[in-house]
């Protein structure tokens, strides 16, 4: 029993981290898709965000003497802004040029890692950017001592996780309690209805894509901070995984969190099987565990996409003359 508790205490912070990352990026996707623009560029945008964020943090660290968490905050902000700007390419192609949204997003996905690696190498001579420092908050005063929740949520935690919680609450309110949210959702379902009531479809869709860019960019830095401490031109498929979370979560924020938790769980089981006694005893080859999150993705998608409730107008460029 104590053994089990220890193991849970050990695994939980990892799960929370992955879950926070997945939900933030998937939430970004949600804003874009519910405004009517498919955004499979999440992965590429994350990479750009991660790159800009990591680089900024290294520069700040080398030149300034500020507290670690402040540096993390700066990195996250720069990542978000970079993601937002980068997503504008997709927004422009998809909304103004009415191009195929899958293609313009795929272009971003190809461009981002190439650009990041090239630039990193030109600057540092190395493929990777090493952030090196450990940004984990080992414990939060008082809160860490709460039984069960203390070790799970307030030990070895990251600033970005708490940020994610706040962002999630704000996003939920924006989506469901404000005029902007109502308009955004109407643009993804029936832009002609919104248009006939004077809602500016273009503005709303730009906003949707830019929010998704900001959140994906932020997610990229979260990845660097809490998963790798270095940036080597990739984010381990988290962007695509977030898309799967978005679809399995049926484009709804609360469901999306639950699905993110499931995905995170499998992810963690695959990453640290050796540390988990019960699992080590099963004596399965490493590869099986590594495959687990992807197999789980397939299975969860297959089960949940049946009653799929994608926004009706997602992926369709808006054309006022179309009847």
């Amino acid at each position, binding site marked *: 029993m104590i053994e089990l508790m220890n193991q849970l205490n050990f695994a939980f912070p990892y799960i929370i981290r992955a879950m926070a990352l997945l939900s933030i990026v998937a939430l970004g996707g949600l804003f874009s898709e519910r405004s009517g623009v498919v955004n499979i560029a999440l992965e590429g945008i994350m990479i750009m965000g991660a790159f800009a964020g990591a680089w900024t943090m290294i520069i700040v660290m080398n030149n300034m003497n500020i507290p670690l968490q402040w540096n993390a905050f700066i990195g996250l902000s720069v990542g978000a802004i970079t993601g937002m700007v980068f997503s504008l390419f997709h927004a422009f192609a998809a909304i103004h040029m009415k191009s195929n949204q899958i293609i313009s997003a795929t272009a971003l996905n190809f461009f981002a890692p190439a650009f990041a690696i090239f630039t990193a190498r030109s600057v540092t001579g190395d493929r990777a950017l090493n952030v090196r420092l450990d940004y984990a908050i080992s414990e939060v005063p008082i809160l860490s001592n709460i039984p069960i929740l203390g070790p799970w949520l307030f030990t070895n935690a990251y600033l970005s996780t708490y940020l994610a919680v706040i962002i999630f609450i704000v996003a939920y309110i924006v989506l469901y309690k404000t005029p902007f949210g109502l308009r955004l*959702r109407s643009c993804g379902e029936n832009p002609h209805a919104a248009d006939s009531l004077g809602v500016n479809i273009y503005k709303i869709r730009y906003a949707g894509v830019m929010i998704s860019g900001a959140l994906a960019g932020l997610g990229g830095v979260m990845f660097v901070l809490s998963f790798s401490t270095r940036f080597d031109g990739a984010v381990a498929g988290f962007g695509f995984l977030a898309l799967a979370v978005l679809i399995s979560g049926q484009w709804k924020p609360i469901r999306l969190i639950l699905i993110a938790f499931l995905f995170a769980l499998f992810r963690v089981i695959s990453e640290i099987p050796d540390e988990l006694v019960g699992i080590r005893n099963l004596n399965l080859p490493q590869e099986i565990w590594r495959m687990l999150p992807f197999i789980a993705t397939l299975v969860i998608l297959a089960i949940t996409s049946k009653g799929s409730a994608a926004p009706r107008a997602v992926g369709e460029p808006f054309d*006022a003359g179309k009847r």
Partner: protein
Amino acid sequence: MDYVIEMIDITKEFPGIKANDQVNFKLKKQEIHALLGENGAGKSTLMSVLFGLYQADEGHIKVRGQEVDIRNPNDANDLNIGMVHQHFKLVHNFTVTENIILGSEDTKYGMLTYQNARQKIKELSDRYKLKVNPDAKIEDISVGQQQRVEILKMLYRQAEILIFDEPTASLTPQEIEELMKILKGLTKEGKSIVLITHKLNEIRQVADRCTILRKGKSINTVVVKDTTNEQLAEMMVGRKVVFELEKTKAKPKDTVLQVKNLSIKQKEGSKLLVKNVSFKAKRGEILCIAGIEGNGQTELVYGLTGMMPIQEGSILLKDNDITGLSIRNRSLTGLSHIPEDRQRHGLVLDFTLENNLILQNYFTSKFHHRGFLKFEAIRENAERLIDQFDIRSSRGPISLARSMSGGNQQKLILGREIDRNNDLLIAVQPTRGLDVGAIEFIHQQLIDQRDQGKAVLLVSLELDEVMNISDRILVMYEGELVGELDPSKIDEKELGLYMAGSKRGEIS
């Protein structure tokens, strides 16, 4: 007398066609002004110009005497002009209230508040007798109620000039009756109304004046009560229209379709939508399934054509059991189908006219050779059918189906299905939203099919249509067949009693 709207010499061109050509239209305060014209005459286009969805290439608009420039629906809104479109513009998974307030929401500290809106909606719906549940989701309410939401949307925005584009096309007779009352009530409260409709008796019932458009030109504006239906129809089509069809008595021959004990269950849930239905359709007769919308007719047809699985029973087509066959194999066995929802099930809207014409037989040797389409054959096929069925479009065989007017989309489907020369033709609401000329044409085609020894199964909600062209009527009520009637022996009133479920008869 002053006008609230004056549209002067409006011209609007689409690629290949002048949808409006120097059109003049003037609306008086507090009148109901009908806009009449064939399919594709340019009625919707003219009103879209007024509502700011399209910009006129030439001409100008005056609202309450002031020259105005209406660039988008917002401008129209500011001028108190509202429009209910031919296809409703509602967000299906929003509530009634959310749909009404969208775009002009109330907020408190930046958050949405619904109190004022709810209060206002309640007042409006009491005042104009527009009963709806403000918290219901759009997808859960009937078409008639959805229309009320559209009307409330305009009233909520203080619209004084209301445009209705074919508001009755998809309503049941009862709902139409109510809408007519609502329209009258609106003018009493000071509103001015433009009503686009193809139904002359609706114009007669509520409209004060009527403007007639033909091929993009305004032909005349007349006072309704000084004009006969025949005169209206003649101005609209440009020739005399026969209201009474030439039709000989049917000579039914052998059975083509035999349905035995057919039951169909709801998609989700266990309710039976079609209950133990049995009947026969014979060569040389038009058999009509009549009933009020939502009594299982749609599902019955889905079951016959294979678009929905059946629960029990069997379907025989020319002695072949087609119960378990796929849609394509049923159609190849000898079934033609003019579907109820022409845009969803009848056409690929973004395909060209010629490609839409081969949807059912592109895979036959007529249209392909070793895996490649025969473009010449396809073009010839299209040209032949365009000619034969008078399908009008802006660019002939290469027009996109989406750009065609409703009536011509319907003629396209009709041509495709009749040309396949099958023994059974199922036509569901074949004249919904069509002008009198096109209705006459389609009715004549159905009768010709019958006379050529085909069986025609007509499903219709329109009493006139049922009474005028069918040879035998089966009435459907709550999923069951409740009466078999001979149209020459009953009147509309009696048919109505059967449809409402208050009378039952024997089925042979």
